[in-house]
């Protein structure tokens, strides 16, 4: 199976979101569930909305936070898989 970090990601069109400070609350309009993104999750979410390629997202975060790329990729992978499983992200 292709790594999610190598896939094109886009935001689902059945969500509503609210920016709260440096965090985000997302409402899934179909199942009525709410999700909270912390500051890092919000950064990743914003970059996906901007259309930045997933591999570039991880590199940008690694540079910004001066963290090993492999660590960022591991955390981002879990985060993105979770968002896809919840129907918030569309992988295509």
């Amino acid at each position: 199976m292709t790594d999610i970090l190598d896939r094109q990601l886009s935001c689902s069109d059945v969500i509503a979101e609210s920016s709260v400070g440096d965090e985000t609350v997302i409402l899934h309009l179909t199942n009525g569930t709410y999700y909270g993104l912390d500051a890092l999750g919000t950064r990743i979410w914003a970059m996906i909305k901007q259309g930045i390629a997933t591999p570039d997202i991880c590199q940008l975060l690694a540079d910004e936070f001066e963290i090993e790329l492999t660590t960022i990729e591991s955390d981002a992978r879990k985060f993105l898989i979770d968002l896809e499983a919840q129907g918030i992200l569309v992988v295509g």
Partner: protein
Amino acid sequence: MATFYVATESAGFYRLMQGDEICVDFLKDRHLEVRSAEHLATYSVDHFVADQAIPRAMANEGMFVLHAGAVCVGSQAILFMGESGRGKSTLVASFHAVGVDLIGDDALVVSLSGSNHEVQAVYPSLRLFRDSIEAIMHTDVKTSAVTDLSSKRRIDIPLSLRTPAAPLRVAALFTIAEPANDAGIRIRRLSIAETCMAAIENSFSLDPSDVTRAQDQLALASALARQVPAFELSYPRDFARLPDVRNLILKHVSQLN
């Protein structure tokens, strides 16, 4: 246990039911039609209408109605949210018993006025179980039954100058969590996102599947979370510790701008 059933709007109206004993229809002209089984006590019907139907009707009108208790300290309101049984009413009652003005213990309307959020009770309620009444309230307090489905007693709150009528600025929100393992009293600042989701989780709604209303609720909760500081509170359920709990709450609130 009583069950609720909400009909979708496709039926032309919403219906809220408690089993097959009470039925409240929310008609399009903002009219509520209430029907109940003949054997049911009036206070049980009143409770269902006042504490379940009306807050949901208000939420469906676009108001942000929190399931929370609140007291007034220094002309500002402190709100306490939490799941049923977490101790909101007991905590609010313990403030009231030492002379703090009660706002309510169940349904609160929160609204934005200028740059501040304000709160007003749907009505100034206070309902406690007998052990809380015996531990906290004065011996001559008057009580009445709330509903046949619960042993909670409704405390007779005389309307007086001590009962705030006008909306009050919200100083802080507290969510009441499970007691900590070490029986300590803990207060943790919540992030804005945590506050937003806690507010949504503890708000009334009539039709959770109504997408437009859900988006509105998200916007209202977000605005509240951005403006009002919120904390998670955990403490041992020991009446003797309530003074310490109150003091810590008041200390935290006094340190806010």
